[in-house]
């Protein structure tokens, strides 16, 4: 039963029930990634970023008359690595021509996979466990790079002249098309981050958004819960994980506002402007090109045999998700814990596990590595055994967590050392039971209000009391020991 008043609420985007949002946001991402091949997709010119303009060129790259493309085996293999890492099926596939005129497109067509892509029907699990479907991951060639001089905004329209660098033309790309399985900007950010980690892990790409080797377009629509998919807009020019999130948030709000004002979303391609934090119309569906796709007659069907596929599959490294799971299990935490995600993303998970193998405490090592190893690489300079020794001092109560941080800073600065010796030099020694008792008594006396609150059952007051104990002991007190002593004094 719905009343007129319910409908009015709904029309204003308000929901009858507080826990059900008035609109759902539906996001699918199209990610273009430059493959880390030695040469281009269809010619022998180097695939290298940052060289002098128009030096990595050849007849195929320039689309000279009579030139013919020859498919790069390494590009296919890297695309297969990615496809298998995304749980895709590898299919016999073909290349099509996508025809359009643009000065940085030398042949006036792009060779791309159209309705017969290499990788289909896979998925990617976010650290949270949310599964995002992968519709396809196909091969295609990149265009050249135009620089428009004069005029405004760096666009070709209104410019006085244009320069074209064909070094990028023909660089192999994989376009990874997700299903519209994302519903928040945070999920979209996680997807991009996770995809990037997979790309790097399998060696398919360096996936640097700032250098353009990873480019993200977002398809955004909104709908009433349970309704059919709404009209989508494609957002381009998303040059960082942050702008992916911001643009989706902006676009969702814009589309919801259109709905609420009684309007409709128009299918169009929109440009994200980092400057004003808005999306702007780039082109509407009406002026979309007719690409006149047809099978590329200069190439033959690509049909990787089982033996090749299995060889590639066997050569894949352990993927980030499995590494996070292993790290979470070893440290008794969850796979989407920030520490696990951050440390695995930095590829320092093996190091943390090595600390455990060296007799250290893995959970403490995980926290230390997460907080202090941002500047270290995959292979930190500090020997795992030295960090293991430090975590043992913590377990034994010889140093507090705060002291351990100071010891660690020195270990890192020196590239290793004896944690026990450093702790002694710094005068860190464990507070004995009677000293702790005195300290706790003093804290209770000095913070009567907090104690009263805590005594009355409010655990939130604990923080203030522990903080006071740490302050009074100048960091020597072990927070856990203080907590235990405070609880022991509270009448049960």
């Amino acid at each position, binding site marked *: 039963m719905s009343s007129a008043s319910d409908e009015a609420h709904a029309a204003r985007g308000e929901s009858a029930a507080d826990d059900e949002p008035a609109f759902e946001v539906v996001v699918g991402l199209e990610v273009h990634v430059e493959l880390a091949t030695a040469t281009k997709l269809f010619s022998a010119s180097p695939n290298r970023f940052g060289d002098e303009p128009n030096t990595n060129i050849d*007849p195929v790259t320039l689309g000279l008359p009579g030139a013919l493309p020859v498919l790069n085996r390494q590009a296919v293999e890297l695309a297969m690595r990615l496809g298998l890492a995304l749980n895709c099926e590898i299919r016999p596939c073909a290349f099509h021509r996508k025809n359009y005129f643009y000065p940085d497109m030398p042949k006036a067509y792009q060779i791309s996979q159209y309705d017969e892509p290499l990788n289909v029907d896979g998925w990617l699990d976010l650290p949270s466990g949310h599964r995002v479907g992968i519709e396809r991951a196909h091969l295609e060639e990149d265009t050249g790079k135009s620089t428009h001089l004069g005029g405004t905004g760096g666009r070709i329209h209104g410019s006085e002249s244009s320069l074209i660098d064909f070094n990028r033309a023909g660089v192999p790309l994989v376009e990874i098309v997700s299903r519209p399985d994302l519903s928040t900007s945070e999920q979209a950010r996680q997807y991009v981050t996770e995809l990037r980690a997979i790309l790097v892990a399998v060696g398919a790409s360096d996936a640097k958004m700032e250098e353009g080797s990873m480019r993200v377009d977002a398809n955004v629509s909104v709908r009433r819960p349970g309704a059919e998919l709404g009209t989508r807009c494609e957002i381009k020019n998303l040059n960082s994980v942050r702008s992916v999130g911001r643009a989706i948030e902006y676009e969702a709000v814009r589309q919801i506002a259109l709905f609420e004002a009684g309007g409709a979303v128009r299918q169009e391609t929109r440009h994200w402007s980092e400057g004003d934090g808005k999306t702007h119309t780039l082109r509407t569906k009406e002026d979309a090109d007719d690409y006149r796709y047809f099978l590329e007659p200069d190439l033959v069907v690509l049909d990787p045999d089982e033996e090749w596929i299995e060889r590639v599959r066997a050569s894949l490294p352990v993927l980030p998700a499995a590494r996070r799971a292993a790290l979470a299990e070893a440290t008794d935490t969850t796979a989407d814990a920030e520490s696990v995600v951050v440390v695995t993303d930095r590829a320092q998970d093996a190091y943390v596990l090595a600390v455990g193998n060296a007799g250290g405490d893995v959970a403490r090592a995980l926290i230390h590595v997460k907080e202090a190893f941002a500047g270290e690489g995959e292979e930190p300079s500090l020997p795992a055994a030295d960090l293991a020794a430090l975590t043992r001092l913590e377990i034994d109560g010889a140093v507090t967590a705060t002291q351990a941080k100071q010891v660690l800073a020195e270990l890192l600065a020196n590239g290793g050392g004896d944690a026990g010796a450093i702790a002694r030099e710094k005068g860190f020694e464990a507070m004995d039971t009677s000293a702790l008792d005195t300290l706790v008594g003093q804290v209770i006396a000095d913070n009567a209000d907090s104690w009263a609150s805590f005594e009355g059952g409010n655990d939130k007051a604990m923080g203030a009391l522990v903080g006071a104990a740490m302050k009074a002991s100048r960091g020597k007190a072990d927070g856990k020991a203080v907590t235990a002593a405070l609880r022991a004094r509270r009448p049960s």
Partner: protein
Amino acid sequence: MSEPRELAAGRTVLDIVEGVRAGTRSAVSVLEEHLGRIDEREGEIHAFNLVLADEARIRAAEIDAAVAAGDEPGPLAGVPVALKDNMCTKGVPTTCSSRILEGWRPPYDATVVQRLRDAGAIVVGKTNLDEFAMGSSTENSAFGVTRNPHDVTRVPGGSSGGSAAAVAAGFAAAGFGSDTGGSIRQPAALCGVVGVKPTYGAVSRLGLIAFASSLDQIGPFAHTVADAAALMEVICGHDPGDSTSIPQPAPELQSVLDTGVEGLRIGRVTDLPGGADEEVTTRVEAAFAALESAGAKIVDVEVPAFTYGLTAYYLIAPAEASSNLARYDGVRYGLRVDATDTNAMYAATRSAGFGDEVKRRIMLGTYALSAGYYDAYYGKALKVRRLISDDFARAYEHVDGLLAPSSPTVAFPIGERADNPFAMYLCDTYTIPSNLSGHPGMSVPFGTGEGGLPIGVQVLAPALGEPVMFRVAAELERAMEAS
């Protein structure tokens, strides 16, 4: 007017190679004989867009030096060859007889050109063609019409009319053309020379400027079947630079020419579309009779492909052409007509650079591929193409080869069909199906019509059936010599 057989005396590829390799004739003298004939008749024939006399003389001298030094001069040592001007030649203008490529010099040789040079052949010039190989008369050239050496009021056929005329006129011992719908076989027939369209993928397309990539194939023109076989052995064979190149070595053809046709089953297509002149069909019948008396079995077969080929072809070839020719945009090379913005520059450049027939086919092909029309035109044409392949496959279960006319008519007068595209398209009725199926075909001179003009008979074979095709062609040639 000269008879092809007389023309061939001492001028065949094999005669030249034998003399030059033995040191009894110099490559320089062979070349000068050909350059002399060019001096005499090129003015009226206009077979060439460019004659490379100086380069050819240097190369001929090198060949002679190699022979004198006892070095291996190659299987085509000293053979003067003419190249259709859609094959890239390093540093030498390659025009496709179009204004759009004005000033462009390829930085590389086509694979075929490279193989010919390596074999000791001497490139005497780049020959005229219908612009971008679109035509059947060599009238659609930006640089003027080529005339038939047998009758200069008539066309040489096309689109490889320049190469066919160059061989027929004795300007070169061998010529090379490209055949997308009959562009080697039809001018070969009209000029009274042998012309071969190899199996698709048998000859590399690398460096051949594309018209319709899935149909284009380079092949030779020669005075004799044996010459054509020798030329095929040089240009065929796998090229890793062309993904559609068949990974097989060149077939051995010279060694099979004397095998005869005893026991071969040769098909007579009972549902061949009409339209061929009687003087042509008479010669095709004579060819069947000649083969039969040489021991071949003549078998009736139905091949509906001949009826449907033309319409499918005129959707598929223009569709591919519309894409292949899109790169001529004035941005990187060739003609550029400046305008106020990029799109206007494209339009001005392409309007000025392309001739009418090329524009007609670009528009036709663009339309056939467009959203909303694709299924009805290009998509349907692809289905017909598959049916055509099936037709041939069925026929070749019963026969080893087929005979058909190469051209419905003898050489027609210049201008007769210039304003009637459809009449021009009908020239290729009998040649187009084998381009669509990818099968080989060749035209062999087999007598003349009432006016003394050459008539060619077309020999068709299944994919990679060149050995059988050449055996049949050699038999027809022997029959002509005996008559």
